[in-house]
């Protein structure tokens, strides 16, 4: 009954949606307003104005950098939220789950150990070269975070957490938010507005280092947050 009713409701809702969709500008055409209005400026002036060969990076870190500042705040909010919801009153009372119910197979262990250095190199490359190649801070950071998760699965969370002691972790988690603030305020003091980067003039050489700094901040913060969320959910302290 409930299913049928919901289904009917959704089919009813789909009619105006589909009709509206059919009236939108045709997908893929180069004459769409989405492609003729703001984007030509990004594509033509982007590399010149921002120093990024990857225009997506130019958009997310320079033209619309404030959005990305918001994005890293959202994920930091998620971390605070997970801690606020999950951390149990007294550490002494915490329920220790068994490290893992099934013993880790030596094959998995071997693969994780062998691949780890390559994964790290790959993510660091992504983070540092975000402005000229696909990928960037967040992608690289998430991959490092995923590696930490994989390590926790094979070696146990306690041992992995020793790589990133609690005192250090506390500083790394807000790294992205703080790095944005530092670069943003520097830009504000030197070039006029929050998150401004130099377009020309004597400070031009600072542009790429600044972008790289932001990328590193996002990467480090992203990795720490992703891993900490996992640890908190898995039952050990974030």
């Amino acid at each position, binding site marked *: 009954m409930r299913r049928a009713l919901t289904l009917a409701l959704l089919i009813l809702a789909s009619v105006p949606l589909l009709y509206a969709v059919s009236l939108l500008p045709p997908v893929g055409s180069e004459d769409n307003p989405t492609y003729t209005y703001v984007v030509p400026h990004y594509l033509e002036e982007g590399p010149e104005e921002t120093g990024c060969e990857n225009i997506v990076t130019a958009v997310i870190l320079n033209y619309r950098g404030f959005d990305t500042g918001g994005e890293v705040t959202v994920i930091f909010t998620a971390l605070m939220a997970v801690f606020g919801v999950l951390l149990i009153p007294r550490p002494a009372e915490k329920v220790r789950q068994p490290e893992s119910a099934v013993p880790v197979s030596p094959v998995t262990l071997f693969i994780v150990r062998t691949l780890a250095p390559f994964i790290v190199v790959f993510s660091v490359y992504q983070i540092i070269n975000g402005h000229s190649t696909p*990928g960037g801070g*967040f*992608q690289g950071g*998430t*991959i490092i975070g*995923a590696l930490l998760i994989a390590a926790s699965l094979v070696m146990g969370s306690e041992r992995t957490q020793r790589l990133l002691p609690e005192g250090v972790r506390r500083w790394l988690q807000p790294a992205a938010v703080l790095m944005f603030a530092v670069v943003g305020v520097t830009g504000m003091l030197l070039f006029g507005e929050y998150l401004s980067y130099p377009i020309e003039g004597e400070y031009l050489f600072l542009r790429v280092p600044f972008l790289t700094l932001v990328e590193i901040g996002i990467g480090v913060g992203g990795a720490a947050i992703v891993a900490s*969320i*996992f640890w908190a*959910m*898995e039952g050990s302290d974030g």
Partner: protein
Amino acid sequence: MSRAFDLVLYGLLIACALAVIRTKDLLAASIIFSTYSLILCLVWQLRGSPDVALTEAAVGAGVTTVLFLVAVARTSRRER
């Protein structure tokens, strides 16, 4: 030609989405959800968006799935 391939991918996406809903075993559903994300990642790579594809692969297929698995392990595996 690439249009036909797009259609196949969309078909697969919808099939995966339905499978996620229908599967009673939550562990299996999580894995199917991961597949869903990977197909989506392929779609985006084909549309000239390697950045989004990388993110989707790392976040959607990777971290989100792991978090789902942790939650399933901490709660119950069967859906009623």
